[in-house]
């Protein structure tokens, strides 16, 4: 299948491997990722103020492009996915916002067609679960990760706000655990897996961010994990920075690429 793909700024810089492993795994699973042309940075966080238009337009541009191609819009970075999905939801539910956005976009382009959140926004995890199916993923595994005890770290952006994200049970998610199982490894459940890593506060108050990250790390370590996987470059940065070298933290796509046997291929470089 073909899907529209929104990589996001970090995937072109410090998180190049997240992008590469995603592309390699998608290819191995028969999914074509068509990168959105001239995509712009999502802004990192969704602004909840309902009078903010400009900060949401990059999402709108990506959404309308995917919609025109009748493709779902897939991203892999938690933050991009969160911003795009929340923006799309606002287009569906906030008529006033949609009206103003549509007016603005029309001024930019004569060919713009009215948009009300029709596009389907998916995280790469959802693509794996709902479109490909974890059973198919499991069947495609070449190097089983058997014996590894892996802690899934969701953070906040993947799941919340639950009403909008609708990925999984916000308080007791299982999508990454199910993926871990599909790859042959053993998921480790711990309570802080859906708590915030400290996020962007890391810049302003590194200490308070460190406390958050520590809580996550300690939770995963005491539950017996050998490895933490995440979908978010900022989560990974915070966990690695505050985890010293207690436990490795990798992107879930790296794990996927490894299990599918495409980690060392050209696609992943």
């Amino acid at each position, binding site marked *: 299948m073909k899907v529209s793909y929104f990589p996001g700024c970090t995937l072109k810089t410090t998180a190049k491997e997240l992008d590469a492993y995603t592309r390699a795994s998608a290819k191995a699973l028969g999914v074509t990722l068509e990168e959105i042309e001239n995509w712009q940075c999502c802004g990192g966080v969704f602004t909840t103020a309902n009078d903010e238009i400009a900060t949401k337009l990059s999402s709108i541009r990506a959404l309308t492009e995917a919609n025109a191609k009748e493709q779902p819009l897939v991203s892999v970075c938690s933050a991009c996915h969160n911003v795009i999905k929340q923006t799309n939801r606002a287009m569906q539910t906030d008529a006033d916002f949609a009206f103003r956005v549509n007016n603005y976009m029309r001024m930019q382009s004569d060919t713009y067609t009215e948009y009300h959140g029709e596009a389907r926004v998916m995280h790469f995890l959802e693509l794996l679960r709902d479109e490909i199916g974890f059973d198919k993923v499991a069947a495609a595994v070449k190097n089983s990760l058997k014996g590894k005890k892996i802690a899934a770290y969701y953070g906040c952006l993947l799941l919340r706000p639950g009403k909008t994200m609708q990925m999984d049970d916000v*308080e007791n998610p299982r999508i990454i655990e199910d993926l871990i199982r599909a790859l042959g490894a053993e998921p480790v459940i711990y*309570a802080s897996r859906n708590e915030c890593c400290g996020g962007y506060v890391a810049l302003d108050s590194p200490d308070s961010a460190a406390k958050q990250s520590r809580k996550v790390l300690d939770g995963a370590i005491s539950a017996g994990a050998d490895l933490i996987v995440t979908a978010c470059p900022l989560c990974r940065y915070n966990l690695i920075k505050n985890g010293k070298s207690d436990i490795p933290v990798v992107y879930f796509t790296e794990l996927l690429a490894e299990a599918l046997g495409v980690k060392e291929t050209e696609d992943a470089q």
Partner: protein
Amino acid sequence: MPRIGVFVCWCGSNIAGTVDVSTVSEAVKNEQGVVFSTNYQYMCSQSGQDIIKNAIRKHNLTGIVVCSCSPRMHEATFRKTAAAAGLNPYMVEIANIREQCSWVHKDMLTGTQKAIVLTKAAIAKVNLNSPLTPGESPVTKRALVIGGGIAGIQTALDIADAGFPVDIVETKPTIGGKMAQLDKTFPTLDCAACILTPKMVDAAQNDKIRIYSYSEVEEVNGFVGNFDVKIRRKARYVKEELCTGCGLCTEKCPQKKVPNEFNMGMDNRRAIYIPFAQAVPKVATIDADYCTMLKTGKCGVCSKVCTAGAIDYKQKDEIITERYGAIVAATGFNPISMDKFDEYAYSQSKDVITSLEFERLTNAAGPTAGKLLRPSDGKHPHTVVFVQCVGSRCAAAEKGKEYCSKICCMYTAKHAMLIRDKYPDVEVYVFYIDVRTPGKNFDEFYRRAVEEYGVHYIKGMVGKVSPEGDVLKVQASDLIANKQLHIDADLVVLAAAIEPDKSARSLATMLTASMDTNDFFTEAHPKLRPVESPTAGVFLSGACQGPKDIPETVSQAGAAASKVIGLLAKDKLIGNPCIAHSDEMMCNGCSSCERVCPYGAITYVNKEFRMPDRTTLVRRVASVNEAVCQGCGACTVACPSGAMDLRGFTAQQIMSEVDAICK
């Protein structure tokens, strides 16, 4: 031609002080149909009534207008007067010239003019009145109670006590309901079983009461006084009349891994089981989902050990039909699912339990024989956290319930107190939003928990429960101290919101009884008719009408019973003749009236009509059940073809009043 008499009352000076009564009786003399008109000091007095009676006879009156006080005062009086003189009582109209005229106007001219108009309006209406006769229907002197919890048991006992036969239909293998699962009861701390089980035995032994356990209501037809009800008696694969309840089969059954619902799944039972020692009827039931014999045809242990020969693997569901005069819904409640509240980790840790599970945990007949032990490892807990309002007062409909579940504050105080009483070493925290204790001795009870038993009540909610190792890390607000608290708990108890039993909705549909948005049954009037459903002959008992504790349930059960007794005591039901009536020739069968009727009084029938050309035509037309219609008139307005009208308040009559007033 109508012959109408007009009788203007002075009411002493009450009317005559502001209304010139003789001008009124004079002014209407030439109104259409009026053949007699007079005035008198007190029309409601014996001599006043005699004037009316004599005039009816002397002038062959076909209708009368009494200009007097409000019809709410003396309409019944004057209808009786008319009837005594041989006039149909519904040929009487009242012009309210006291409350709505003489008493609210000061000036004689104004009052008199208005009285004349009101009288003319009444005359215009009575011209169009037709004699009405209330319908009658017989009453089957047997009641059905649906649900065998404390509400249903109490209702049945009270009805039986008045001498009427009553059947209880209970979907579970035993009656007793939620109360049978409880340990102690607030605010007296007497044991639930000690006060409930004697009532269960009373019900079983009462020769007026039949208990259909393991049965469900499948279909309801008919109406007040005459409901035909189909009851499905589910196959329990045990002959109820032969089983002695010895329990041998339940000990020998090799299928031991069936979650025991009576203990909220905290231990296991066998595939053949008696829910608890005091079950009524004390009869074994085979759980077809687990029984090896029923599933594979190989086993038969219970049959072998049963000396009474009661096991019957070939038993089938049986449908019985009974006729009842009255039906009481007593379907009760359940705690809501905790799936949507996993911030409390209910599905992640065995040591996070609901309050109903806690009841079983402290019950001497429960899975731990009453010892407070953690479900996960059987260890004694040292810190117990109670969380109130889990799912109650929750505006998100997809998660919880917007209403207050009412019983949680009190049972939590009870639980906290019971722990501190038996195990003073255990620290108990209760997180609450508000403590709501309106009820006799309720607040005193809660204060005792705090002051005498040292339970820590903290205003604030719990944000998250994190199972870490063998502790439950509780993160919560203390709003008074303005602090975030972190407590390491061994056991967390959730006061889950309660909701009506799932069976209530389909039952309401069968009964055409209305429900609110939360699936609680709606009462006929929220203040004045709290135990009656708007559907005649259907009554409400217990938590199916709204959250209730035991004392409230029992008093409502008694109230419902007294309403049932009042109905069954009648030999026949006399209806209100002022009800809807459909002109079948005009009805186009559109169902608009059926949809607005709050009582389900309108049904559609296929009727054969003889056409002018002598052919016959079958048409679907509305038919009003006269015993059920209450005469509100909603259908008359909904009817697009004008077929539906309301007797006593016909469109013609009301328009004639409008015309008279606007002249």
